[in-house]
């Protein structure tokens, strides 16, 4: 069942078009990614979904509601986490949760939520004294405190260190497992690949493709490359005889084999058959970055 439907969304600002023509649907219970480079129109798109901006064209429906005319009803079913800091500096963690819980008719138990996002120990800490990761987790908790059906998370892990980023990812997966549909805005390929069930690739205000991460990568007719240093001399012909291999090249001690399909397995198997060990073995596969490059001719980051 679809919970969000965006049709031909168009939004102009003075001097430029932020969103040219964006359409997508989000199904109930999935993590839907909106992925694209900075300035692609991702944030403007979700701001229109969240009723914070009025589109110049197209339609948006969230749980059957029109964000333009049913804002209050919309904000009961849609939780939003915005990009930047958005709380008074001196407010304590528990006060923020308690306050935001009071905005909703049937809020979640904020104490339990505080535990779940790992902020119980920071209960009495002022917002200004929280680390970047703690602020983001509080922000996620505030987006969830109204028991929304859909949560929009915008650039959730930007500016976080790798550990905080992984912790936040786990939190997002837990939230989805609790039955909340998530729209995740990101310019971060690894994040989209790890978390999203489906992704809309957006570039210059347009949707380039909507698919699963694997589906997007598969659209690139990408070659894989296997690179290694053989323990004994290896004949090109041995490798070229394999159906998966297209090309063999050498630089110094290293051999690079390009091809498709089950390339790495067949190459290592063939080498083993000749008692050759592939040292420093590296396998390069296509990524969402490659998919984006192939679909738009531009790099994601």
């Amino acid at each position, binding site marked *: 069942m679809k919970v969000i439907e965006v049709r031909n969304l168009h939004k102009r600002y003075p001097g430029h078009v932020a969103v040219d023509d964006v359409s997508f649907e989000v199904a109930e219970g999935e993590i839907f990614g909106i992925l694209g480079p900075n300035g692609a129109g991702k944030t403007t798109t979700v701001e229109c979904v*969240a*009723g*914070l901006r009025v589109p110049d064209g197209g339609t948006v429906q969230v749980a059957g509601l029109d964000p333009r005319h049913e804002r*209050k009803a919309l*904000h*009961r079913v*849609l*939780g*939003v986490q*915005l990009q*930047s*800091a*958005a*709380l*008074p*500096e*001196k*407010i304590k963690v528990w*006060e923020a949760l*308690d*306050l*935001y819980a*009071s*905005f*909703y*008719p049937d809020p979640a138990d904020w104490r339990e939520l505080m535990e779940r996002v790992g902020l119980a120990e920071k209960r009495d800490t002022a917002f200004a004294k929280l680390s970047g990761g703690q602020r983001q987790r509080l922000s996620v908790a*505030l987006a969830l405190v*109204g028991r929304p059906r859909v949560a929009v998370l915008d650039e959730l892990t930007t500016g976080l260190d790798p550990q905080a980023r992984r912790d936040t990812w786990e939190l997002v997966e837990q939230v989805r497992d609790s039955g909340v549909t998530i729209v995740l805005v990101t310019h971060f390929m690894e994040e989209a690949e790890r978390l999203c069930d489906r992704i809309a690739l957006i570039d210059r205000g347009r949707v380039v493709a909507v698919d699963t991460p694997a589906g997007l990568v598969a659209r690139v007719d990408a070659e894989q490359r296997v690179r290694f240093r053989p323990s004994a001399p290896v004949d090109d012909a041995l490798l070229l005889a394999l159906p998966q291999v297209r090309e063999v090249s050498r630089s110094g001690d290293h051999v690079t084999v390009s091809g498709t399909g089950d390339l790495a397995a067949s190459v290592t198997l063939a080498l083993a058959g000749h008692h050759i060990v592939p040292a420093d073995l590296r396998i390069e596969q296509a990524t969402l970055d490659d998919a984006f490059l192939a679909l738009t001719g531009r790099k994601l980051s």
Partner: protein
Amino acid sequence: MKKILLVEAKLHLRDVGTVVFSVVLPVALLLVIGSIPQMSEPDPAFGGERLIDTQLPSMMTLLALLTLAFTVLPAVLATYREQGVLRRMSTTPMHPGRMLAAQLVINLVLGVGAVVLLVVAGRLVLGTALPRLPVGFVLVFLLGAAALLAMGLLIAALAPSGKAAPLIGTSVMFPLMFVAGMWVPREVMPDALRVVSDYSVAGPFAQALRATWAGQWPEPANLVVMGAGLVVCSVLAVRFFRWE
């Protein structure tokens, strides 16, 4: 709404500067200046009235309200707008207008606290009279406070940033304090300055406070100017206020 008030009140009290400058300072000034002997001598320029009778406590009441309306209120609201606090609220079923209302209520309550302390401290320490026309005093106080807060709201609406808001507020506040008679009482002002004073909202507010303190009903013209200030500034503030 109750919770916003509660949390915002706590945040104000956590900011020591707010309470010190808006409540403690005017009361301290009243007591310090009021204990200067010349202040308690009948002054022929005031028709034999003593400066501590109505001039000083009214000016300190004005100081407290001007500080709240022109520095505290604009600073908090402009900072909240700048940091996205109001925008964040607008993604919940609670309209950020409630936050605005909460700020107005809290500043009004702080102002009431200041005036109560001023009246009580003056009575107990300096032996000055309580306002002789209590009902009129309360009504004048509420009208004047509302007019000044509306002016502060307009500054919050127009200020480009959280840092600029109190600067703009202060640069409006000091001239207002001057024309209201903080340093040169209205009785001894040159005529031209007196005309400015009579249209400055703060000036009529000070006059009306002094009148009711002395037991007289205020000049209707004073009330009209304050009412006009309230209406005009409220309309402009609503017209120009931005949530983000």
